[in-house]
């Protein structure tokens, strides 16, 4: 089973927004980062994966099985971490754990204790008294303590300081030392993914823009900066998005090889970050 998650032609319509024909494959054993500006459909996609919303069309298979038919067995093996904390705020950490643990067949209390210690989450505190970072760490501790094979995270690091964020990434790296484990991680903070992601899936306005591994991404996308005189009807078509000012232009190309040959001599060719790719893809769609 090569893919932990396989979404095929999933559509979901809301008033004012729609997921259109989303096909997404998340490879087992790797971290797939799911990026897109706010409002592009990341959360909705995750909700479709977790069967929290009823899709209008398409199928979702996790661990090779249809989630609509094997929901409970599949969810035994999924650890989830969401942006908003949906735990019962009035309970303490310990009480919340006592509530959750019985649901999972493979709950590992020892592991949970270890994580709580490592993350320094106080057991007796009420959930509402925890800081956002602590809540998230608690969430993660729970997700990692029932021998899950797949961790699904929806914007887990927004609102956390960089120190915390790095810690989370390190924890995920440890988790992935086992090649049978998979992580699917949605965020709009692309710098986190620059570091850790193996594969990137980019969604924009309800549609998948691309899904590829980081190396291929680095080989196909690049930033070209040069004098605006270089731009004309012909050359413009190599750019996904452009920003032209009086002092020159900066553009994202999706075909780095050709573009470097074309412009190489007279313009600067640089690595494109995920943020650049996100920005120019969004921009390109609106202008150029």
């Amino acid at each position, binding site marked *: 089973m090569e893919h932990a998650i396989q979404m095929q032609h999933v559509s979901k319509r809301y008033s004012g927004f729609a997921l259109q024909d989303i096909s997404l494959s998340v490879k087992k*054993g*790797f*971290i797939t980062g799911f990026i897109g500006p706010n409002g592009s459909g990341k959360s909705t996609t995750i909700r479709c994966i977790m069967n929290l919303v009823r899709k209008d069309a398409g199928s979702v298979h996790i661990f090779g099985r249809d989630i609509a038919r094997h929901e409970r067995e599949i969810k035994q093996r999924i650890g989830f971490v969401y942006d908003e904390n949906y735990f019962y705020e009035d309970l303490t950490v310990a009480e919340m754990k006592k509530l959750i643990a019985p649901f999972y067949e493979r709950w590992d209390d020892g592991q949970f204790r270890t994580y709580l210690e490592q993350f320094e989450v106080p057991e007796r505190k009420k959930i509402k008294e925890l800081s956002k970072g602590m809540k998230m760490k608690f969430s993660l501790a729970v997700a990692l303590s029932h021998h899950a094979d797949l961790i699904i995270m929806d914007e887990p690091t927004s609102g956390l300081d960089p120190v915390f964020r790095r810690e989370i*990434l390190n924890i995920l*790296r*440890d988790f*992935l*030392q086992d*090649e049978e484990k998979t992580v699917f991680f949605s965020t709009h903070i692309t710098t986190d993914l620059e*570091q*850790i*992601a*193996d*594969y990137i899936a980019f969604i924009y306005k309800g549609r998948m823009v691309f899904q590829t*591994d*980081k*190396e291929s991404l*680095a080989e196909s996308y690049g930033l070209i900066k040069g004098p605006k005189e270089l731009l004309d009807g012909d050359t413009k078509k190599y750019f996904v998005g452009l920003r032209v000012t009086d002092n020159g232009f900066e553009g994202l190309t999706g075909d780095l090889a050709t573009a470097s040959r074309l412009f190489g001599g007279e313009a600067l060719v640089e*690595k494109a970050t995920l943020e650049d790719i996100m920005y120019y893809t969004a921009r390109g769609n609106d202008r150029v």
Partner: protein
Amino acid sequence: MNIIISNSSKEPIYEQIKKQIKQSIYRGELQEGDSLPSIRQLAKNLQISVITTKRAYEDLEREGYITSVVGKGSFIAGQNMELIREKRIQLIEERLTEIVDECKELDVSLDQLKEIIELLYKEEN
């Protein structure tokens, strides 16, 4: 085995890894049969993607520097000593180029340079 990568260099990270492993082999720091960290372990230590380390190892294997055994890991392959010698000499040439350039900048003549080299050869370590 130390591998230090630069995020700001233009050189892709997998190339940097390859280069450094090769250099360790040329310098004799890594011998035939020595085991390399798994691609995941290396990715974790360097804080990069597994895809990158995988690429580096795959290229190195293709070029004959390492071999990978499923379930066991990756190891330094038996090296062609002639090839290694050639490669090391090539590296020396590269470094000499730097030295020669600098000498030219400072107006150090060829004869002066030869003198220095002779002295160095005569020195007993």
